[in-house]
């Protein structure tokens, strides 16, 4: 999207790096805490494990103002349409971290009520395992995402396939093309 289409010369290359640096250093998460993982997400944003040093302590309630959706917790059948609606309302470029095993794969709740992995509903960029993942794991997932943004790998994949980026290609599910 955007800058990558320009014919590359030295100047646009520098601007592209600047844009990627800016995007990486001010990823604003949307509040999508659902269950126990939400508490660990709050703990990651609080004083002991500070997310502010990554520029991310501002949890935006409105998806229009958010870049990153950390799906923190188990997604029930009733919540799945809400999840998709909030994801659709976010502006590009947007990323999704699936926090916890319930969001990544349904976790220990392999039953009628829980969506077995949010990648059935939204495209996921980074999966953070744990039940709940400790703040260090979540920060590692966030830093992995920052690395993906820094190298431009995420946007490169999106342009190539037209689908939301996923870290593992086998589990790619056909979802609506992001606007």
């Amino acid at each position, binding site marked *: 999207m955007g800058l990558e289409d320009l014919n590359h010369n030295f100047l646009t290359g520098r601007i592209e790096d600047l844009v990627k640096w800016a995007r990486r250093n001010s990823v604003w998460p949307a509040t999508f805490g659902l269950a126990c993982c939400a508490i660990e997400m709050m703990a990651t944003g609080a004083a002991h494990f500070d997310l502010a040093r990554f520029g991310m302590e501002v949890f935006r309630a409105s998806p229009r103002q958010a870049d990153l959706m950390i799906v923190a917790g188990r997604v029930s*059948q009733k919540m799945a349409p809400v999840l998709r609606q909030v994801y659709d309302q976010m502006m590009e470029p947007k990323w999704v971290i699936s926090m916890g095993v319930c969001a990544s794969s349904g976790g220990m709740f*392999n*039953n009628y*009520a829980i969506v*077995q992995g949010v990648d059935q509903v939204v495209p996921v960029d980074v999966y953070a395992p744990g039940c709940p993942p400790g703040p260090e794991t979540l920060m590692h997932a966030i830093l992995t995402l920052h690395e993906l943004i820094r190298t431009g790998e995420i946007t490169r994949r999106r342009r190539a396939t037209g689908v939301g980026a996923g870290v593992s290609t086998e589990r790619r599910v056909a979802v609506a093309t992001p606007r």
Partner: protein
Amino acid sequence: MTEPDPELPAEEDVPAPPALLHGAPVTASRGQTVVHADPSSYLDVVRALYDDGYGMCVDLCGVDRLLAPAVDLPAGVEPGRFEVVVNLVSIDDRRRVRLRVQVPEVDARVPTLFELHPGTEAMEREVYDFFGIVFDGHPDLSRILMPDDWEGHPLRKDYAVGRIPVQFKGTPPPR
């Protein structure tokens, strides 16, 4: 049947409950008083217990007895497919009592406790959602935890858990 556990209190140590309480037979379960009522006398028994001082209904839930019919019922009480279990508390006397109502499979209806204990509104909706038992007189008997257009009643024993196959995970449970 398992052999009797030597660590349970002996029969003589547990005080015998009265045989009938407001016309409903009474048993004891691990030291807790259990009153058995049928759907027609259920509301009267709860009302009588309310007058006795059991002013708070702390819990109302359902049980599907399809795979394990109740064996601890007193004489004269026919087991039904479902059970509605009500837990009442008397705050002034610090006592608890439990009520078990046998509900048949066909025409599973019981009267609502909403007039007496307004707090049962959400609990009865949950029982309806999960078991399909209808509560007559409830102000708004709709699904509460499942989506409104869900079909089926998930906590019934003939409703599958709904698990998806996972590689290397063991076979489904025997039940």
